[in-house]
């Protein structure tokens, strides 16, 4: 356990270093003058020269990378070409929208996924199990933007039950969080089912049953604890998948989060934004994965990660 933690702790900064180098290097691979690229096509010669000094383009490559890192560590990712605002401001304005959508989607996914997975395990091989498993593999295969478009067509435009676009009220959360939460719900249902089935066969369940405890108490008591592992695993290790899904979902629903910011930035060739958003996204994914690993190891010390 200790060796595992140490290894993870050593790996964390190394991975972040590699990630940042890749993102830094990617923009430098573009043909043309990096100062012009980062200042934007409409920038004046003065602005481009200013950018050249800022990026340290007269310095050796590794020094430039060091400069990029030290700026990033101070929250300085440059300015958006499009809005002229600092990248960090753009991101922090939009991040709460992505986060709140993620929280709502995950909460719904956990409730539905755990309930469905437990139901499937309790009624193993009977029709509720089969129904849940079919729904789960279907849910893991549906394209979220297709589901989004179908909901928009029917729930928003045809029947006018829900607002079509934007993030103004709680009704705005319904369709995006279904689109985003379906995949984690399906994954959680499958994992909950299999971890429940593993537990049901254990000796201590037989003992509990022999003591005369009713099935309801047994399932609730032991299931809840064992459902924790799939939840932490999916929520923690799939956080990157969720952010990836948010890129698409936010664009469909005009949700003002960082996913849409990224897509708009690619269309506008707003490289400071692309660089900043990818760096912050990947860093948060690496940190969340690390925390999830720790949590999983803490909940279930038997799990070995080799």
């Amino acid at each position, binding site marked *: 356990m200790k060796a595992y933690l140490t290894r993870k702790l050593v*790996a964390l900064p*190394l*991975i972040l270093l*590699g*990630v940042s180098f*890749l*993102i830094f290097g*990617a*923009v430098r*691979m*573009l043909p043309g003058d990096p100062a012009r690229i980062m200042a934007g096509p409409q920038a004046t010669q003065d602005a481009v020269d200013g950018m050249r000094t800022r990026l340290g383009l007269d310095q050796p490559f590794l020094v430039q990378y060091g400069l990029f890192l030290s700026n990033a560590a101070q929250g300085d990712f440059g300015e958006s070409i499009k809005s002229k605002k600092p990248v960090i401001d753009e991101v922090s304005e939009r991040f709460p929208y992505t986060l709140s959508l993620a929280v709502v989607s995950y909460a719904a996914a956990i409730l539905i996924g755990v309930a469905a997975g437990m139901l499937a395990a309790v009624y193993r091989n009977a029709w509720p199990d089969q129904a849940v498993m079919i729904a789960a*593999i*279907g849910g*893991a*295969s*549906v*394209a*979220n*933007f*297709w*589901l989004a*478009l*179908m909901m*928009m*067509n*029917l729930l*928003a*435009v*045809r029947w006018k039950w829900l607002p*079509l676009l934007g993030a103004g009220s709680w009704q705005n959360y319904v369709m995006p969080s279904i689109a985003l939460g379906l995949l984690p719900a399906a994954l959680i249902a499958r994992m909950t089912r299999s971890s429940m089935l593993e537990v049901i066969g254990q000796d201590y369940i037989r003992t509990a049953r022999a003591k005369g405890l009713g099935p309801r108490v047994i399932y609730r008591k032991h299931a809840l604890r064992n459902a924790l592992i799939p939840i932490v695993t999916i929520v923690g290790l799939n956080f*990157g*998948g969720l*952010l*990836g*899904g948010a*890129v*698409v979902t936010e*664009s*469909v629903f005009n949700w003002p989060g960082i996913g849409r910011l*990224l*897509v708009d*930035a*690619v*269309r506008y*060739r707003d*490289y400071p934004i*692309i660089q900043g958003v*990818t760096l912050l*996204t*990947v860093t948060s*994914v*690496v940190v969340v*994965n690390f925390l999830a690993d720790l949590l999983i190891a803490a909940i279930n010390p038997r799990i070995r990660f080799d």
Partner: protein
Amino acid sequence: MTTLADSDDLPAAPSRARRLGRILRRHRSLTIGGAMVLLLVLAGLLAPLLATHDPTQQSLATALRPPSAEHFFGTDQYGRDLYSRIVYGARLSLLEIVLGVGIALVVGIPLGLLAGYSGGRVDQVIIWFMDILFAFPGIVLSILIVSILGTSLVNLMIGIAIFSIPVYGRLSRNLALALKQVEYTEAARALGAGLWRILFQHILRNALGPIIVQATLTAGTVVLTAASLSFLGLGAQPPTPEWGAMMSDGRNFLGVNIWLSLFPGLAITFSVLGFNLFGDGLRDLLDPRR
């Protein structure tokens, strides 16, 4: 008195066909998924025969029609036949899978085998590289790569292949670690076989099962990611009949014409579901312990 050997009512060893039949009956997801994948492949290969219209032929007089006997799935805003475009779209999906999965296999497997077999520094460096790529959400890495290389389907496939590399790299590393110590590998080493000969002849051959399962499961992800990014305008460009790109047309006719987004989305879901079922079934077949 008859011995067992003389008795001729012993059942004959089951024929190959019958054995296959039994496997297909017992592994339902393998059968259903396999049939779906086969249908996708056939649709792609036979697209010119199956299509009823030219997929790029415009006819503004018949724009945005609902499904009919003439146009099975209706027509889009330029009057193009949606059914024919979806059939041709199957070709693009196959191409996406061949490129996306193929490049990832070609790069990821040798790296992973080398890492697992060599151990030490080589292993550490390769694992580090894989972990870096793995840290990126697939869609985000693809967007970064497309923003550098430019928006096109081929560049998108390069992006998707790059994020799939660590999947195969890690898998084949673990397989190489396990197969490194078995007797036939040691025998080959003792006989003086070279590094790559050992890796490909002795280790890869015996690791193919799990790699095929992974490739099948990844094929679904590739189709889904490619469609998502084409839908956002970051992959296939119009008038290419790519399913995701077709749905971004449908987005402009919300409430006016639902068919435009319904059918391409069904095609995507059908393909992804097929590969997921097929991959699950293969895994059960090849590894009954799970």
